């Protein structure tokens, strides 16, 4: 009995192993994708082809050529037909793409160019000329937006830092318009941070320049020079009108001191040297001033030698 039981168990065990191996083989075959192809359903295929064909025709009728082409392509391989449809559409698309690219190249405005490029992409999504063209247009637009935003924010920051509000700016503009340059310069002096405001700085340079001219006309040339130097410093040496006015004033002052020096030459040569040194200081390129200074120095030198001889 026991022996029979053992034999039965051995048989059952080996059968189970065989069964397990068979099952595993089946599972592995199924998973590997090499199992026997199940019966093909012609209904599913027929339905697919009918639906996709109807889609292709509908899209083509709506002028959606690219989408229609895709739908024709989805049935072409399965049926081996419709090759004519895809080829026909491809030719039509190529012709239109060429036409739209031409439109883009001659477009007068960015908007027109964008529209033409979009038409190209609607037909040929990978068209690099259109994509690059649209990217360039978009970049220009966004950079413009960012620059404007950045400028506005910088202006706002400056307004907060300097205390120059729009109202303040208008008040100073009114002083400029009324030629009240002295008042402008005096009031601006009360706002130590105001020079950091770009627009205010430009206005102040103008005020200093005009104020200097007023001073010069009234004979206060030294004060005029001081204001012009202030304006030049504020402009960072980049205002040509200030630089020009400064140069003219320096030349004019140099001439004045040359005249002064010459008039003192015989009576008070030492004072003449001082005057001519100032003339050269104002305008180092003034040759007359240089010559007269050399002459005055020689006179002083000779006088000193004479005094020394007399003392001996």
């Amino acid at each position, binding site marked *: 009995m026991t022996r029979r039981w053992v034999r039965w168990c051995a048989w059952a065990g080996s059968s189970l192993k065989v069964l397990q191996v068979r099952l595993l083989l089946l599972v592995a075959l199924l998973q590997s994708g090499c199992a026997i192809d*199940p019966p093909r359903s012609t209904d599913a295929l027929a339905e697919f082809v009918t639906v996709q064909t109807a889609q292709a025709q509908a899209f083509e009728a709506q002028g959606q050529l690219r989408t229609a082409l895709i739908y024709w392509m989805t049935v072409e391989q399965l049926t081996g037909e419709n090759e004519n449809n895809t080829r026909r559409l491809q030719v039509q698309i190529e012709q239109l793409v060429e036409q739209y690219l031409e439109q883009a190249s001659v477009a007068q405005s960015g908007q027109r160019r964008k529209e033409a490029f979009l038409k190209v992409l609607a037909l040929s999504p990978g068209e690099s000329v259109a994509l690059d063209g649209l990217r360039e247009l978009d970049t220009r637009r966004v950079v413009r937006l960012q620059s404007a935003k950045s400028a506005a924010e910088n202006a706002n920051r400056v307004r907060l830092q300097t205390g120059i509000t729009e109202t303040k700016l208008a008040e100073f503009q009114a002083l400029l318009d009324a030629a009240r340059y002295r008042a402008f310069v005096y009031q601006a002096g009360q706002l130590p941070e105001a020079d950091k405001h770009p627009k205010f700085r430009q206005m102040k340079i103008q005020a200093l320049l005009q104020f200097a001219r007023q001073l010069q006309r009234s004979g206060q040339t030294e004060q005029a020079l001081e204001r012009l130097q202030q304006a030049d410093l504020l402009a960072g040496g980049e205002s040509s009108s200030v630089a020009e006015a400064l140069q003219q004033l320096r030349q004019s002052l140099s001439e004045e001191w040359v005249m002064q020096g010459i008039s003192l030459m015989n009576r008070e040569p030492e004072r003449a040297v001082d005057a001519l040194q100032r003339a050269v200081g104002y305008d180092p390129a003034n040759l007359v001033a240089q010559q007269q200074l050399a002459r005055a120095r020689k006179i002083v030198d000779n006088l000193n030698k004479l005094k020394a001889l007399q003392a001996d």
Partner: protein
Amino acid sequence: MLLRRYLLISLTLGLLGCVQSPVTPGTHHDYTIVAENEHFIWVRTTAPGAQRMLAEKLLGDAKQQWQIRELNPSAALAGERLLVVPKVPVNPSSVFVDGYRTIPILCYHQFTPGNTTSQRLEVSAAAFRAQLTYLRDNNYVVLSLDDVAAILDGRQAIPERAVVLTIDDGYRSVYDVAWPILQEFGFPATLYIYTDFVGGGKALSWAQMREMQTTGLIDIQSHAKSHTSLSRQTSDTGDAAYRQRVAAEVSTSAAILSSRLGSEPLHLSYPYGNSSIEAADILRDAGYRTATTVTRGENTVFSHRFLLHRTMVYDNHTLADFAGFVDSFVKKDLR
């Protein structure tokens, strides 16, 4: 023993050239590949939810199921059917004869529990949930910024309804309020962190960020280091000084994020949304893939990848406003 036999059988079949492959014609567990060419794979299936399953198995990303849906608009939902799966995006430009698709990128900052807020940059949990419900109910595909980069590269197309969720700065309320809601919906979001803020009173900690990152839903990226504007300032003395300042902000933040979270940031949002073409060049040279501003506008396949637009979501925005923000199709007759 059994495992060894199974492996042996699989190996033998593999050597015979019958290994399991998504592009091998034949029967798979849920589908049979009927035919294939360079553009498409034709598949016979009876599986419910076939579009998602095929996107996962054949395109490697369930999110791409919209591509299968668009190409098989009238396919039966049940029973045996034939479906066509596009191997490459059918329309990578996402431009059609009646207009073009865009990717709205939303920008959030802080969240409050309940349904009240105390400042403009806060969005209440109730409003946030309502917004995500709108996205889910209207079949929006919530993209990551890597998806956006792939779209700009031409490797993916824009889904019919797409949106990107981003959250700036790194407030703790993201962890407390937004993250549980995002998990509830399974929507990914990008968190742009400025590293100087981390660990502060109302800010997230590195541990919280790591916890959120491990779920795969939260992607942590850079919002620079100190939250100073990266556009040119009046205090920037010259071009070189400006570039140096921007490069330092970007590289320091990247180094900190990388050491704390284990991955280099590839996307950046400009503090205050302020940028310039020079800052964009610096990011490109540093290997970034996208950067976002806070200027509203369309993001298309031809957008500048380092000057992408975003729409700020404020506490006073209604659901109707929100619906307008995520409208992702620009109608234009291009026939």
